[in-house]
């Protein structure tokens, strides 16, 4: 599809991509391949000897109740962050995408959480929920007439608080992308639908939402990466996986097994399983985007 703009420079393009490719091979593909290899070994404590064990790390993984509970916690957490976060952001972006005054101000006032790091989000929400003395337990106790909210002893509440903090942090990012996507939906389409007698609710689901699907699927993927990996700091600062292992998400368990218990083979097996899950989602996302591109042509 593209032509050579500077014929006769055979060597130059390789030179231009060489730095990127070098970084990718040395720091990404190399370690990833090594990760596959290591998942087939166990190392003795202090890493003095490694023993080939085949798929035993994986067998151990899938038969571990701790791992199963970590998968379930990750699933609940991600579902909350992705579905909750995306719906709220889309609703806010849709509100912003109207012809009203002060859109510039609202845009700034609603996207800034993008610049907040997960760790900062975590520590602020932890302080608001601080058991016995925090603001939210105070309000809850006042409203309910004495109920003591303690998220540090209740696993379900802990997961909820952690997920709320993570969702809050991501709203800014999601709103930016949804707003950009909404602005690409041509007005004529919506006007035509309205002339055909479709209400704005119907017009949204019939026209706006399908036309947003590249943005939505992109955000789905990014939010999943976020919920799987980038929230590590948030978990470490808020709960360290507790109470019990209620908030021990996969990435946290991986860190513990790999770097606290020094169980590198076991941790590498966990890495690979997570990789397979993201690949599947990435492929689905790519399908949606390319399908859409063909359709719009």
């Amino acid at each position: 599809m593209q032509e050579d703009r500077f014929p006769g420079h055979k060597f130059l393009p390789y030179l231009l991509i060489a730095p990127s490719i070098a970084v990718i091979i040395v720091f990404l593909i190399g370690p990833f391949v090594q990760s596959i290899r290591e998942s087939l070994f166990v190392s003795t404590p202090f890493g003095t000897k490694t023993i080939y064990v085949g798929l035993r790390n994986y067998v151990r993984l899938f038969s571990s109740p701790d791992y199963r509970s970590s998968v379930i916690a990750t699933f609940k957490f991600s579902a909350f962050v992705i579905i909750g976060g995306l719906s709220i952001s889309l609703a806010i972006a849709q509100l912003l995408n109207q012809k009203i005054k002060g859109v510039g101000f609202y845009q700034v006032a609603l996207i800034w959480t993008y610049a907040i790091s997960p760790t900062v989000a975590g520590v602020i929400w932890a302080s608001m929920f601080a058991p016995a003395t925090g603001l939210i337990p105070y309000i809850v106790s006042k409203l309910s007439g004495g109920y003591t909210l303690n998220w540090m002893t209740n696993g379900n509440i802990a997961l909820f608080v952690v997920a709320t903090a993570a969702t809050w942090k991501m709203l800014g990012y999601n709103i930016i992308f949804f707003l950009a996507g909404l602005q690409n939906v041509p007005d004529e389409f919506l006007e035509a639908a309205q002339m055909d007698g479709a209400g704005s609710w119907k017009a949204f689901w019939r026209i706006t939402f399908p036309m947003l699907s590249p943005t939505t699927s992109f955000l789905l993927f990014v939010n999943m990466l976020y919920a799987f990996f980038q929230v590590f700091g948030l978990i470490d600062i808020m709960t360290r996986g507790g109470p019990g292992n209620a908030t021990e998400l996969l990435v946290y368990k991986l860190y513990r097994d790999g770097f606290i218990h020094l169980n590198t083979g076991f941790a590498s097996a966990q890495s690979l399983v997570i990789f397979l899950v993201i690949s599947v989602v990435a492929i689905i996302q790519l399908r949606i985007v390319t399908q859409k591109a063909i359709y719009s042509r």
Partner: protein
Amino acid sequence: MSKMTRKTRHDIFIHAILILLVMVLAFPVYFALITSTLSFQESYQYPPKLIPGKQFMSNFQEVWDRINMGRLFFNSTFISIIVAIVKTILALLAAFAYTHFKFRGQGLLFSMCMITQMLPLPVRIVPTYQLMASFNWINSYYALTVPFFASTTGLLLFRQFYLTIPKDLPDAARVDGASPMRYFLQILVPISKTNIAALFVIEFIFMWSQYLWPLIVTTTAEMRVVQIGIKMLLASEQIAPEWNVVMAATVIVMLPPLVVLMLLRKSFVQGIAMQTSK
């Protein structure tokens, strides 16, 4: 009722909801700001205080002394700027190659760059750490920056833009006798300003937020980054956390990425809009 007043009413309703949303979204940060101005006793007052106190400077001083915040702040700023700049340069070069040249293995090499987003750090963390150890990079700025240098986001951002450039532009440059690199530096890079600014925002915030990797590859207090600093403040408490001091640190840590986002907001939003429109 006239149409005009109905529109006005509708607008007032929208404004009311939006203002409410702005306040709800900002409340946690407001709460952090308030807490950072309180004394330790005030921060444990019941009911919790929602109006500012007078202790910000002393809390700030406490943070500075206790975790050597000056040093951590420098580390975070340094690695964020270095990574944002190098990533931008590598992405510009690669996008130029993929959109202006035709070469053998192009498709394969492009997919190799794309694979980056499927290999986030945690799926290769143990061997990457071992690699750092074998390079003797543990506890160095190399470990904190070099493994982050490849960027799919940047490559896609620039590629998307370069594909829309009319081919007359490079052709005219060539006819005028400009070398490819001269065309790149004098024409392509300057017209990429908006995208460069957008990428800088994305990568600066990304690096500033790093937590897991710095936690693993740094071993001494002077190589820590600000995110770990917050954790150090929390963990140093035996009994109740000193929320006032922790929040003073949090406010400091929050500022730089917010400033970067606000300063470059226009370019950032434009860059994103360019990427979403196919």
